[in-house]
């Protein structure tokens, strides 16, 4: 090896070492700085713990449990999102909420409506306390616990009939030609059907189908109801979505599909992208002439159904503008039993436009008149009978 070659080798070795040290330090420093930035961010909630501890040390008066303060902190943090639908329901409320979505309550198990004379007509659910006690479809309700029902709203009457399972209610019924009689009915836990249906007194060729909420059982209940109406030879159908505040999305899409023959029901836009939900081909009532009743409290999943049927020109909407809720929540059960609702998406009508804040606009606006008769339903029957 010549001297110059050895020198070159030394130089290369030293240069390599220098470069190694320099870049090693550089690498370590970079990571250190990155870590500092990172930990500064994660330390921000420190202010929270400072406040938490100061309160425990100094607050005058009794301080709520750590759990209650945590619920408070969660409510406060969620409030920053400024989204009324992203909420935490604490365990007790969460339980009621789940009951509502599974559809259970204490009552006697009847559907009720007013006939054209204004009388309150009953129809017991199968195997319900009402049916067991002897109530038959078509019985007219006169009194509850001795108080006449004639001037009360249907909602009031429903509330009167409900109560804790095991308690009793006395109903006075009329079933001409039998003279009015009383039945004592023990309330029980009722699995609330999300769907009720009947043929209309004024025109038995018109079926009436009322969906009150969208639970997991709703598509099956709707299908059975439709089948039963079709079996009774109805030629037209009123789909009532009034007072339906929504519920689960997937069942709503399935229900919309019963009235469509394939095609788009809605689009769901999440942070990661968009998804289109379709109706299955050959819905059971895809060809049945249809009218949809809506009102102010028709919201969310119910608006998806009404919106799809309107956009797909399946039938006119009758009633009042709907609620106008274009967001979709996911519900999570947390480790302590609370339910967290998070707005996880917005939905779009089949034509890709979002629902307006003012809701869906009915094709035929109808205001409830000051009468015990159902103005919108009467209007729907007129529409079927006159074609306008």
């Amino acid at each position: 090896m010549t001297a110059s070659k050895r020198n070159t080798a030394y130089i290369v070795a030293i240069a390599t070492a220098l470069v190694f040290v320099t870049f090693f330090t550089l690498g370590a420093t970079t990571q250190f700085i990155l870590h500092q930035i990172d930990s500064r961010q994660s330390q921000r909630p420190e202010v929270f713990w400072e406040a938490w501890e100061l309160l425990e040390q100094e607050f005058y008066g009794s301080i709520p449990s750590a759990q209650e303060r945590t619920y408070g902190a969660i409510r406060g943090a969620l409030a920053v999102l400024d989204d009324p639908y992203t909420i935490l329901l604490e365990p007790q409320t969460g339980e009621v909420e789940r009951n509502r979505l599974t559809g259970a309550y204490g009552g006697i198990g009847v559907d009720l409506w007013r006939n054209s004379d204004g009388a309150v007509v009953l129809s017991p659910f199968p195997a319900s306390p009402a049916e067991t006690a002897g109530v038959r479809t078509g019985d007219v309700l006169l009194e509850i616990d001795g108080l006449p029902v004639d001037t009360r709203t249907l909602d009031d009457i429903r509330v009167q009939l409900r109560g804790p399972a095991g308690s009793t209610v006395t109903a006075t019924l009329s079933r001409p030609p039998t003279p009015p009689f009383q039945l004592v009915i023990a309330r029980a836990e009722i699995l609330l059907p999300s769907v009720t249906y009947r043929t209309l007194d004024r025109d038995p060729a018109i079926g009436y189908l009322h969906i009150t909420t969208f639970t997991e059982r709703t598509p099956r209940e709707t299908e059975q109801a439709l089948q039963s109406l079709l079996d009774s030879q109805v030629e037209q159908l009123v789909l009532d979505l009034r007072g339906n505040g929504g519920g689960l999305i997937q069942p709503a899409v399935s229900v919309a599909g019963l009235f469509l023959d394939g095609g788009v029901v809605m689009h769901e836009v999440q942070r990661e992208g968009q998804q289109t939900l379709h109706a299955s081909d050959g819905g059971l009532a895809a060809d049945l002439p249809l009218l949809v009743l809506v009102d102010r409290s028709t919201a969310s999943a119910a608006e998806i159904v009404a919106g799809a049927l309107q956009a797909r020109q399946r039938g006119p909407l009758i009633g009042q503008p709907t609620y106008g809720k274009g967001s979709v929540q996911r519900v999570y059960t947390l480790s302590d039993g609370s339910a967290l609702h998070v707005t996880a998406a917005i939905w779009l009508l089949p034509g890709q436009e979002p629902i307006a804040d003012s809701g869906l606009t009915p094709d035929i606006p109808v205001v409830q008149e000051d009468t015990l008769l159902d103005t919108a339903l009467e209007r729907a029957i007129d529409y079927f009978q006159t074609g306008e």
Partner: protein
Amino acid sequence: MENRTTTIVVRVLLVAALLACTATAAFIAGIGVSRLAETGETNILPTTVSPVPQPTAGDGGPVYPDPNPTPPPTSPDEEAFQLFWEVWDIVQQEYYGEVPDMQAVTYGAIRGMLETLDDEYTSFIEPEIASILNEDASGSFEGIGAFVRMRDDGKLEIVSIIPNSPAEASELRDNDRVLAVDGQSIVGLGIYEAIAFIRGPAGTDVVLLIERPGTEEHFEVTITRARVQIPLVEAEILEGNIAYVRLTEFSSTATAQLEEALEGLMAQRPAGIILDLRNNPGGWLNEAVSVADLFLDDGIVLIERVSDGREEIFESHDGDMLEDIPLVVLVNGGSASASEIVAGAIQDRGRAALIGEQTFGKGSVQRPHRLSDGSELRVTIARWFTPNDVAIHGQGLTPDIEVPLPEELEAGQDPQLERAIEYLLSGE
């Protein structure tokens, strides 16, 4: 020759490649070693600090992927607080819409936690507002010297101008609207944000863009900021040689300003004094005690009790110039907190009559804490009681002579003040 050149080029390239590889390897190794060191550190900390066994995993309910697993809780409180992170992880993953930054979320969480205390006086104040409020509570600030309010249309309006301030020396007038500060629009900002723009170190200039009702063109006003004393006291001699002194707040300079004003009034040997505490929302506790002391001889001013029953007694002492002169204190529903301490002591000790309306009824004491990011937490730490051990929280003080205001008051009319003068002149 050509062959040799090629050899050299190849060698140089080889060396360069070697150096580059070394550099990259070293850089990665540096990052790796540094990260290892950190992980070691964070692993050690919680285990040495934590005396609590690991919590058991929650049972039931779906399991969610955890993007940033939180460290094991180190106290029962933090264990209870895990639910917060459970919620927030879901929100960060799922929420459709913008997730606010951690600071806003933290402040929201603090406010939510305070809500559960059910005490409106325990409050959280964000850094920007805290610094303005603290400066104000000190009795002076560095700025231009104008009282402002935020109009509904988002424009900042000059309500009044403080005497002897830079604003008074400028072209600024009452009812002017400030649209921009140093070229930056402040329309639509929160009032404290807007104030923060206008304030600044004494000696610096600030340029305000002004809209004046009745004047077509907007115009600029340049003002040199200075330290401005917030006037807390109004003093004058009324008919019948009655001294009138009004205190608007109990900031740090309240006693000093009041004393100075009273010295001027006393020089005129008044027949009596009216202390007006109407619409005075309070301030510092020690200022309340020293203001009360101006009018009271030896005795109790208030008793303060903390949660566990321990008490502290605040007293007044002999030797002030106003301990004997006939006195009347004016109060109303806007007299709160420190105002009620002063009025309550004067009433209980039989020093003077209260005239006016029932007071507000705030009998709690807050301690302000500066948090690490400059925000402030005011914690209710005690209740206070009058010298006769009467609680006024939620009750207020009942005046000895109640003088309600008529529904419609003509401008310049003040029946409560008139009654006070009459009382001092007639003795009843």
